[in-house]
């Protein structure tokens, strides 16, 4: 694929992921609403070593999700770009194989990174706004989010890898 159509398709994919996240996933009962579609897509891009696609996706999804973020402007963008950096480093230096374990470990690293960076912004917002930071709930959400995202990515990968879902030609 040449460069321009590839970038355009990434922009459309990032906007669609953002729309699906705020319009559908956020309406699921907890803890399923903690599944982060943009982070999931970024994990697959990182594992596939699509570095520039990873950063383009993080950039566009970050800008798109700013319109539905409670944190100050820039928090979502910086969180997703930080997660992309972390994923790029992890897949280059730590989880270098293409196994399901590498995928799940990358997911855990990505989700933990995103939750911690975004959580730091929320913490600062609460402190500056004079509200008590909800540390207990955030810790609970952190572990729930890790579990839900790792489980979801595992299921998605099992479906992708299953031969039963492929069309067999005679």
């Amino acid at each position, binding site marked *: 694929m040449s460069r321009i159509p590839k970038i355009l398709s990434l922009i459309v994919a990032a*906007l669609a992921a953002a*729309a699906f996240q*705020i*319009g*559908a996933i*956020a309406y699921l009962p907890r803890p399923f*609403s903690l599944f982060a579609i943009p982070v999931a897509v970024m994990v697959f891009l990182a594992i596939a070593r699509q570095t520039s696609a990873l*950063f383009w996706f993080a950039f566009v999804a970050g800008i798109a999700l700013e319109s*539905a973020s409670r944190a100050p402007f820039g928090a979502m963008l910086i969180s997703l770009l930080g997660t992309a950096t972390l994923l790029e480093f992890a897949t280059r230096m730590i989880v270098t194989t293409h196994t399901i374990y590498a995928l799940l470990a990358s997911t855990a690293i990505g989700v933990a990174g995103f939750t911690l960076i975004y959580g730091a912004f929320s913490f600062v917002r609460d402190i500056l706004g004079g509200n008590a930071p909800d540390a207990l709930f955030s810790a609970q959400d952190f572990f729930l989010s890790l579990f839900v995202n790792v489980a979801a990515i595992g299921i998605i990968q099992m479906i992708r890898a299953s031969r039963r879902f492929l069309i067999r030609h005679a």
Partner: protein
Amino acid sequence: MTPRKYGLLIVLVAVIVFAHGRGYLKPIEWGIGKAVGSAARPFTAIARAFSGARHQEAVPEEIRATLEAQTVEIIRLKEELGELELLHGYAAQANYATVLARIVGKPADGSRSFLVIDRGETHGIRERLPVISGEGVLVGTIAKVTPATAIVRLLTHPESKIAATTLDAARTLGVVQGEQGLALSLTLVPRGETLAPGMRVVSSGLGQGIPRGLLIGTLREVYDIPSEAFLSASITPPRTYDLLPLVGVLVSPL
């Protein structure tokens, strides 16, 4: 990624945040907000239809496939029409300039007690304005505004505190507070005041920017704990906030 590219990325993010702060990005933010809001709305309508349909009887299997798409669309249109009629009726009699807004989703961080609406700064919406559903039911207040969208903090959020009064002869005053993002309670009611299940609770007008008389809910259970200085009560809101298709933002008195 080379260190040079990382450097460029940091500079780009810094420029974007600076340009946002100066207001240079408003047209772009408006366009992106509109695009994401429009794209999210069909997902939200389907999510709401499924949430509402969980409590209804199943349609026979043989006709379900044919009817599914039309049913979702009809449910969405009926909900919007009903809500629109109620909001228009309320806005006409309340003497308040009201901006009608569609709900396009919830914040991306999984927060329970917030909604995203498709009207923002360019439509005259500002932080702390009250948000109502049909017939003047108070839903929450505006927590954050972008050029094309805004985030509504629902009454169920723990940080939400609304000055309220009961709708009876005694006019008992108190504060309606969110409980863990799930429920509402009337607190800080002085001992000796009368509270009883079934009493209606409305905004008292003593809070900043929230007019008097917006319905909040009905008292469900009253807690009179001898060791505590105040009475409190749980409140049942008249609407399920998650299922609302439209809301009105009370912008200014006419």
